[in-house]
């Protein structure tokens, strides 16, 4: 079987049984295929609490570097799969950069998972500068206030808040187009930003 075909068929989280099932082969041949994929650099092995092996098979594993999604998964109780490959080499992306990237994806699940980053954000100057560069200061502020309602977060500096708060003439904007909140209208009013979450969406944080 060709390498790419094998990778396409087995990409994702697998056990030896699922590999046997997908490829319709016996255990020895399944182990052989896993061995080949590992040799090519596509396999990361983890052990479950019952000592069973789980194989993470992905092209990402071969590429090296670091992805924003890995950082979010490292810090958030809500885990997300990688919808697109975006890898960074030669530097460790900061949490502030990661948060801005997550908001820019406009993906509900990615933004939800990234709320946990507010627990660790410490460089508010960097966050403000990045947010300003991307014209999403108010989105960051509104999501911070939202995160504060469901978890313990680091305190946002007064300077960030005063610089990011909207002026009277500002119009309402969305975090994710067309999504408004029923439960967090107060925060929406303060920041003139429509939030994409309701209380129920945030239950995973409890």
């Amino acid at each position, binding site marked *: 079987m*060709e*390498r*790419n075909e094998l990778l396409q068929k087995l990409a994702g989280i697998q056990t030896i049984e699922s590999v046997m099932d997908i490829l319709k082969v016996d255990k020895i041949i399944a182990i052989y295929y896993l061995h080949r994929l590992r040799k090519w650099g596509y396999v990361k092995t983890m052990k479950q609490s019952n000592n069973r092996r789980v194989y993470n098979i992905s*092209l990402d594993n071969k*590429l*090296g570097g670091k992805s924003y999604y890995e950082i979010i998964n490292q810090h958030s109780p809500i885990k997300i799969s990688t919808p*697109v490959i*975006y890898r960074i*080499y*030669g530097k460790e992306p900061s949490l502030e950069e990661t948060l801005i990237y997550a908001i820019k994806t406009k993906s509900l699940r990615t933004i939800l998972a990234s709320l946990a980053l507010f627990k660790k954000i410490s460089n508010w100057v960097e966050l403000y500068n990045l947010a300003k560069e991307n014209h999403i200061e108010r989105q960051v502020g509104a999501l911070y206030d939202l995160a504060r309602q469901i978890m313990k977060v680091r305190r946002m500096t007064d300077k960030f808040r005063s610089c990011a708060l909207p002026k009277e003439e500002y119009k309402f904007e969305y975090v994710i187009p067309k999504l408004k909140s029923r439960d967090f209208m107060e925060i929406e009013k303060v920041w003139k930003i429509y939030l994409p979450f309701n209380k129920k969406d945030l239950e995973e944080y409890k």
Partner: protein
Amino acid sequence: MITIDQQQRLLLNVTRRLTKKITVYAIGGTAMMFLGFKDATLDIDLVFENEKDRTVFKEAVKSLGYLEMDAIKVYGVKRNAPDMFKLNDERFDLFVVEVIDFIFSDSMRKRAEQIHQFEENLILKIANPHDIILMKCATDRIKDKDDARRIINSTKIDWDIIVEEAEHQIELGKERAVFDLTCFLEDLRKMMSVNIPSEIMEKFFKLVERQIKEKKKKSREN
């Protein structure tokens, strides 16, 4: 030959010498390595969005000791041949928007979803496998047909994307692209037994026929 790890180290070295942030598209063997189609490549084919970005990149590459070489040796006398730089076995082929008889179009840019960022200054976007096939047809060097065959055989190809892009190339004024692509795919089918649906080939033949008719009509009018 250069492997994916060596290539990443090389691109990091280039990035450290860049004087501004640039976005570049990988189209050839480099793209194939990032997509897992091959382990090593001889040349690093890159498409820049403008001449200024290419100049900045060229300066960085030169400062690493790469020497400019004549594109005629590899591409013959073709239009829109790249600027080429070589050091030992590794070679950079640097294009700006146009790749021989093709344009690296906006739709191709949109399809390039995989992104690799090297430090702050270099954003490398990886062309979609469909577009790599089109670019392989554009460059049509010795190994390009082999590479195209490898992509077609190891991933699911949506042939409609390729037909649509061929039509788009005509709209962009690259009339020759469809003819080249039809010949390239026909060669793959006949010489290398690559499975390309006959109805797709029919579509390409019709496109070429239509082009011939239009040309005849134009020449009669003149």
